[in-house]
């Protein structure tokens, strides 16, 4: 039975190119299935959707100031080619920007699409598969466009913070009001009585132009690579007031915001009160007995 198993490398590229310049990117496409595949290539524009890195291809037009083509001598963009089982092919994408391009970002995907075969008789659906690699392209006259970021909705949860029972979570969105994407390089610093007790690194995520991105944090694990997850601080904590400061650093620009929260030994106090109540109840009942 025909199946599909294709890999593409790299999964994403990010470039800054000057107006009028051309860049070349090589992709390795490998057919890891047991049958030959007929594939075509295409470029489709997208825009960010939600704050988690999702994309949407709905009604997005490709930047007319960028021309995409394949630099392969025997293949053009949009033409079909056959990839035999367990074989690999290099596709060389050429991206040329018009000299009159206005500084801005373009987001697109380089797709490799498997062409559907003939559908024989009987009721059935045929799977068509597209696997893509993203292109994040900044057209700019400077290598480091000016950055501007806003930190919004920086908060902690849960509202009731106990010294033992639960971890403290941090969430925030980074808003990018500019025409160029940047990365969430930075950290959350937690202090108590003006002493830093913990510094949590932010995961370096892309915040695209005129969009928001939810922060994530990096934690070291036993494996060589760090793990990215929601930002949190694990118990136990000393009771008292804490301050968390979120700092972003990019291209010598710093943006930060601080919030305060209070940790209280709720569970411990409630437990003591329950024990005292039980003791008093026992004494009261014994006293009442004739």
């Amino acid at each position, binding site marked *: 039975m*025909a199946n599909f198993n294709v890999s593409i*490398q790299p999964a994403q590229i990010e470039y800054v190119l000057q107006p009028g310049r051309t860049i070349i990117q090589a992709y390795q496409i490998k057919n890891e299935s047991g049958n030959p595949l007929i594939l075509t290539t295409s470029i489709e524009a997208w825009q960010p959707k939600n704050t988690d890195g999702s994309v949407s291809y709905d009604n997005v037009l490709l930047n007319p100031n960028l021309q995409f083509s394949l630099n392969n001598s025997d293949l053009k963009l949009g033409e079909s080619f056959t990839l035999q089982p367990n074989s690999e092919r290099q596709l060389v994408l050429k991206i040329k920007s018009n000299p009159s391009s206005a500084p801005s970002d373009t*987001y697109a995907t380089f797709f490799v699409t498997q062409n559907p075969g003939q559908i024989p008789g*009987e009721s059935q659906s045929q799977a068509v598969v597209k696997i893509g690699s993203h292109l994040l392209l900044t057209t700019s006259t400077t290598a480091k466009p000016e950055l501007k970021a806003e930190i919004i909705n920086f908060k902690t949860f849960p509202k009731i913070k106990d010294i033992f029972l639960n971890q403290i979570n941090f969430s925030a969105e980074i808003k990018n009001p500019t025409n160029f994407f940047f990365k969430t390089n930075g950290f959350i610093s937690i202090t108590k009585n003006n002493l830093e007790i913990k510094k949590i690194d932010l995961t370096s995520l892309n915040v695209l132009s005129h969009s928001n991105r939810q922060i994530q944090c990096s934690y070291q694990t036993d494996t060589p690579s760090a793990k*990215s997850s929601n930002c949190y601080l694990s118990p136990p904590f000393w009771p008292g007031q804490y301050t968390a400061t979120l700092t972003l650093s990019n291209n010598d620009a710093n943006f930060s915001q601080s919030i305060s929260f209070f940790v209280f030994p709720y569970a411990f106090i409630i437990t003591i009160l329950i024990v005292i109540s039980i003791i008093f109840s026992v004494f009261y009942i014994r006293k009442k007995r004739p």
Partner: protein
Amino acid sequence: MIKNNLLLFLFLLIFPSPCFAQTFDSDSYHIDRGNFNMTGGKKDSANYQLTDTVGQNAPGQFDTDGYVIKSGFQYIYDSLFRFSFAISSLNINFGSLVPNVSSMDTNTITISSPGISGYQVLIQENHPLAVNSSTQISNTKCDDSNCTLNLASPWVNDDTYGFGYNVIGVNQSGAVTNVGTSNYFTNPTYFRPFADKSAVPSEISAVIMSEDQPVNKHSARITYKVNIPIDQAAGNYQNAITFIAVPKY
């Protein structure tokens, strides 16, 4: 001490050491490199596999307390895997459709995504299952008539008609884990209609599986279900379902 430093300075000024670096120029680029790599990568034969780096300064593995450095292109294979997507079967066959008897078929998708942000898989049909433009099987609305392109609900009744799908995360053994799919389908009885590209306006591809972490070979089983009423016209109903697998940015 000052006299020694001055002598050293004079010596270096008179007998400078050449710097063997690499410089490349073109109309569009100027590149300065510290070294010139002659070859590197993965090679194999019937009996051997070799990864190597030739020409780079100080290649190899260096260990110390708390740190391990792997220097050289060959070590890139230790940490990076490719963005890949697989489908176990491209043909989803319902056989002969019988009224009030659900026909189902399954296939399995498997994804690997090295990027720190994870991935998403989207799905869309070119048109409803159809013999021709006027003879179609409508997409399901599920038992409570509440399921939509992005909201699944149960479909278990034999008198609920239409075409829909369920996606549920599974492990290598096929056991249900719901990893990557729990945000979209509660359990295997929850279904959604396909986003219809031929609709006016065209319906946007819907996300069926996603995660926010790098993953290596995470799988999901897709169940396609079709049920027809007694008055459905006879014929071979067909369509194409497009899967789009991309990283998150």
